[in-house]
Structures are given as structure tokens and as C-alpha cells.
């Protein structure tokens, strides 16, 4: 099975996880249409 990116869609959750794991956030602003 092809590995997929584990996207988060909530900024607060991403910040919390980035802080806990000492990681940067890769933020993709995409066109949803």
C-alpha cells in the first residue's frame, strides 16, 4: 500500500504536536476546488 502523508487540518493540534515533538510545521495552503 502506498504511504500517505498524515495531514492535520487543525492549526492548534499541529502547533501542539510540533511543540511536543520539537518539529517544524509544513503548512500547505491549497486550493480546495
Amino acid at each position: 500500500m502506498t504511504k500517505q502523508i498524515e495531514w492535520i487540518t487543525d492549526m492548534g493540534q499541529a502547533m501542539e504536536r510540533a511543540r511536543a515533538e520539537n518539529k517544524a510545521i509544513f503548512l500547505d495552503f491549497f486550493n480546495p476546488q
Partner: protein
Amino acid sequence: MDAVTYPQEDVARFINQNVVALRVGSGEQPMAADYNITWTPSLLIIDADGKEHQRTLGFVAAEDLIPAILKGIGKMHLNRSELLEALDRFEELQLHHAGSAEVPETIYLSGVARYKNTGDAQELKRAYELLRERYGENPWTKRAYPYRLL
């Protein structure tokens, strides 16, 4: 990005292992306004406080995305004076993505990080000399040009 870049297994693995992946529609407010988003895709590297450290506009191919993210992580560490962590990322990029267009900038930034870490201005001169030797009149060689006099 969805059709070409993100489905690549090495891209997905790298992103899952090295960053927190956050995806937001370009019309989602107030985030889009806060980050002044005017076009998609806009790919940002931000830290856990939401501070932006790098922005890439437009489609990025799979072979270019990993080096771009590595550079962004390194810039985040450099901006936070986490110099050894920054150097680790820049060196990883130079070692594993030697043909990437991101390499000249990371040579420049490595010189900056080494100088900040040691106080030795010769690190800046070494960065200039390496850029000149490998890339000739690259824009980053030009930015390092004053350091030839150190």
C-alpha cells in the same frame, strides 16, 4: 501537488518523519489573511508558535520538495539560534541532495551558522570560496562576495 508530488512514497515518508504536516484551504480565515495568502499552493515552514521561516509559492516537484523542506527546517533552527541543529539539516541537504538548486543557499547559510557558533569570520570566507569554486557567479556567490576580504 496531490497528483504528482505528494503520492511519491519517499516524499510522504520524509514529511511524516521530519515535520508536522498541516493542510489548510486557501480561503480559510483568519489563517489565510494572517499569512497573507494570495496564491496556491503556498508552502510554508512555520514553528510551533506559528512564526514563518520559509515560503515557497507554486508547484514543487517531488525531487525538489524534500530539499526545500530540509532548507526550511534548517532556517527555522538558524533563526532560533539552534545552530548545530541548523547545520545538521543544511549538511543533510548538501550530502543527500547534492544536485538540488537549494544547495548554494545552504552553503551560504552554513557559513553563517558556523560563524555564529564559533565567532570565526573565516567561516564566512570559506563559504564564499566554496560557492565560487562550485557554482561560479551564482547569486549566492554574489551575496557572499564581501566575505572574500575577511
